């Protein structure tokens, strides 16, 4: 839903890739949207350079990308239009591509870490790995 004139707009993008982690990234973004953490919008539309999506990214206060792996397609799509997002990469957060079951528990854990302000993107690299985040969040 379009957000009229309010500050603090956060937009969410998932890579929604074909692998298990792509599916998890999508589920995480949808869960965060449902919980009111931000507004999910379409990464494909940004890639297609549709002006409304591009300008919304440029006008948002915060853009969050959730990528399954280090290829970071979502983050790079935003960077391509001159937007630097808060980037979360699931492999950096301890998940293994091709070996991770898509479960509600894992989705919940990742959501909790993204929502935790003490687990900022720059710190997320150490998140989840070995079951401990090391940044003060619940991991």
């Amino acid at each position, binding site marked *: 839903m*379009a957000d*009229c*004139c309010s500050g603090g707009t956060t*937009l969410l993008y998932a890579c929604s890739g074909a692998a298990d982690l792509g599916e998890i990234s999508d589920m995480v973004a949808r869960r965060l949207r449902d919980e009111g953490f931000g507004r999910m919008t379409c990464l494909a539309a940004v890639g297609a350079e549709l002006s*409304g999506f591009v300008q919304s990214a*440029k*006008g*948002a206060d915060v853009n969050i990308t959730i990528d399954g792996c280090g290829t970071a397609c979502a983050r790079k799509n935003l960077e391509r239009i001159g937007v630097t997002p808060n980037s979360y990469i699931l492999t950096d957060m301890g998940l293994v591509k091709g070996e991770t079951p898509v479960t509600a528990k894992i989705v919940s854990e990742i959501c909790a870490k993204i929502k935790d302000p003490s687990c900022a993107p720059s710190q997320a690299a150490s998140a989840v790995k070995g079951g401990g985040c090391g940044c003060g969040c619940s991991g």
Partner: protein
Amino acid sequence: MKKIQILGTGCAKCNKLQEISEQAAKELGIAYEVEKVKELNKIMDFGVMITPALVVDGEVKVAGKVPSLEEVKKMIQE
């Protein structure tokens, strides 16, 4: 004829954007028409997630902020 559309539900910023856009078009001396788009579903059809937004000839030029008069002039001329 330039088609200028102002996307927003009618708040103060939306009205300001319309005012600036009309002033810009007048100062540029171009023929134009202005349409206010207030319905959320129509706003979403533009892919706009934050308003106000300025659309010129179908292309979204800015969303989520009110640019300056000079910036709007450039957007209209692009």
